[in-house]
């Protein structure tokens, strides 16, 4: 009994997240049933839509790829006390830079594709340098500066697409990138592309950086307590700039991977807010690279699963937005669940004692 208790308490953040998910699905089920809609059928089509066959699973994974990379991008910053809300802007600029390299330069695939991804990372990383500099040298709150910097990125690319770069037809987009700059499609007729390898590498990289290197250790130390870190001789500002630019570079990479794997060009408005989603993904993933993969899978599945649900059942489309919202809300309020969880596991008396 005691070992079970210990295990539950040690990972209480994981369990409280799962409980939050359960409650969210419970609420949705009640909501559906109370309006006379078959909840079982809805969940069935939801799962089927997300993982039911090869096509659906592939499409889900293709949504998980940008969410994972962007989620890790946010996480790396957050681990070092840098709240990079500018992932969206960095991602968009990264996508644009990579698309330009993809169609202007002509090289063999073995150089072209990496070069294009590097261009995306460089664009995102350099763009993140602006708020990084502002924060460390001028003390500007990075949440505000990064939010504001998302707008110039969006409109600058919009301007490039419409006024500067050549446009084919009526679609506001850059010309298509060369075949040498594209990720191979792994299953014909689906969107599953080789870019998922990049996502895996990013997760592994983040895990090793944060847990196995001294820079990663110092970054986490800054995140845990800035003053203590400074006291111990860690170059706090330097680490924060590194984390910020790394975060931006990964955000740019997420955009580049979307261009190389899905759209084959920069499309105005291509991002449905992956940058903003990245924050939720990282939070739900408990600020852990592997957790990010799981939570990205959840949100990717929500995107693809809800579609089938709305096609095959008579669930009104407004409700599908609501479902997404309930899941996020419940997971965001998991602190509340955590304390009740911990109360429940420990027993009331023990909990009281600990509080005192």
């Amino acid at each position, binding site marked *: 009994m005691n070992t079970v208790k210990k295990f539950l308490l040690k990972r209480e953040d994981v369990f409280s997240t799962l409980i939050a998910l359960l409650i969210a699905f419970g609420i949705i089920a009640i909501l559906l049933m109370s309006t006379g809609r078959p909840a079982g059928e809805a969940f069935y089509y939801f799962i089927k839509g997300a993982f039911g066959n090869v096509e659906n699973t592939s499409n889900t994974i293709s949504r998980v790829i940008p969410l994972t990379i962007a989620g890790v991008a946010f996480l790396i910053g957050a681990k070092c006390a840098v709240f990079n809300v500018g992932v969206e802007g960095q991602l968009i600029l990264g996508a644009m830079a990579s698309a330009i390299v993809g169609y202007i330069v002509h090289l063999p695939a073995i150089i072209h594709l990496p070069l294009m991804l590097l261009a995306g990372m460089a664009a995102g990383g350099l763009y993140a340098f602006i708020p990084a500099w502002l924060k460390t040298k001028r003390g500007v709150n990075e949440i505000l500066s990064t939010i504001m910097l998302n707008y110039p990125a969006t409109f600058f690319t919009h301007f490039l697409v419409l006024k500067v770069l050549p446009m084919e037809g009526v679609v506001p987009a850059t010309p298509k990138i060369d075949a040498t700059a594209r990720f191979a499609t792994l299953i014909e*007729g689906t969107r599953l592309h080789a870019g998922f390898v990049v996502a895996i590498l990013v997760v592994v990289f983040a895990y090793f950086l944060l847990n196995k290197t001294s820079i990663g250790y110092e970054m986490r130390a800054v995140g845990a307590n800035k003053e203590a870190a400074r006291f111990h001789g860690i170059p706090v500002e330097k680490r924060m700039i590194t984390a910020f630019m790394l975060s931006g570079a990964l955000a740019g990479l997420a955009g580049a991977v979307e261009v190389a794997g899905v759209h084959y060009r920069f499309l105005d408005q291509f991002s449905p807010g992956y940058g903003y989603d990245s924050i939720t993904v990282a939070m739900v993933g408990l600020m852990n690279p592997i957790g990010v993969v799981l939570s990205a899978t959840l949100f990717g599945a929500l995107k693809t699963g809800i579609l089938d649900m709305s096609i095959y059942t008579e669930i009104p489309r407004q409700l599908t937005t609501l479902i997404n919202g309930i899941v996020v809300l419940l997971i965001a309020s998991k602190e509340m669940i955590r304390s009740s969880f911990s109360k429940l596991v420990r027993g009331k008396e023990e909990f009281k004692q600990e509080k005192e």
Partner: protein
Amino acid sequence: MKTMRKLSIIASIVLVFAFVLASCAPKAEAAAPAEEAAPAEEAAPAEEAAPAFKAAMITDLGGLSTSEETKGFSDLGWDAFKKAKEDLGIETTLIESKELADLEPNLRKMADEGYNIIVGVGYLFTDAIAAVAPDYPDTKFAIVDSVVDSPNVMSLTFAEEQGSFLVGALAAGMSKSGTIGFVGGMESALIEKFEAGYIAGARAINPDIKVVSGYTGSFSDVAAGKELTLTQYGQGADVVYAAAGACGLGTIEAAKEKGFWAIGVDTNQDAVAPGSVLTSMLKHVEVAVYDAIKEAYDGTFAGGVKVYDLKVDGVGYSDMKYSVDKVPAELIEKVNTFADEIKSGKIVVPTTRDEANAFVLPE
């Protein structure tokens, strides 16, 4: 410690899946015998009995509007589906895409499901339909506002510049200040057609007219539409035409507040603020989409480009139910003459801003 951590992560994955599976299995059984049969369950056996003609509509990011007042471009497409369902007794499905990466999978999904015709509403479908259509030669596709060259794709395009020409003429005729405004949404070649037609039409009535143009950068930001319109009003514009989706509601709101004329777009928006909307430039997406469904149903579907212009009543302007008594009869007559001259080819309406600014009415 480390293994513990790994274990718990694995455990959590297993738990998630276990829960998810558990949650659907028993509930599915529980839901089935429930007396109040859901519409979806009723539809299922009918589907098996006879393979009905199935039509699917997919929207781009715009989606459908939630109220009658804010009806826009995609809603007109869905109106056609509703009509087709009633008239032809076909099965219809709607998908609202949430992001651009979804367009192609959504098209494939409906094609795999055996839908007979799939309509992509919006030019953003260009790439997706071009990629999907060759893989499904037996499925018919239609795209609104763009051209895809494939034998099983019908490209439905509109001569927005012609309709805009007529409302531009009306605007110039009704303006007392000699300045009129144009509010665009996201800047694109498509919206430029609206602007060009509007400017040319205004110049046809009054060669010295001043047209102030601006773009909101959005098709949904009502506040931005209002703000831009008020700026143009400040510059002296007393008639403002909005080709900006829901942003146009902001234009109408501004017109109502300050007491000048707004011009609606796509659908008949005259009733949104009776007396403040001069007229609406109509784009009969519902006609074009219905034609496509009907032809696919009748078996007369042919790929290629179909242009919906004034000649076939594909575009036009509203009947001005609430404003017609304030518009001089000579002006309406003149506008109708322009319409005839456009139909006969005497007037060729420009489609770019530069051409429009140089437009001179042919003698």
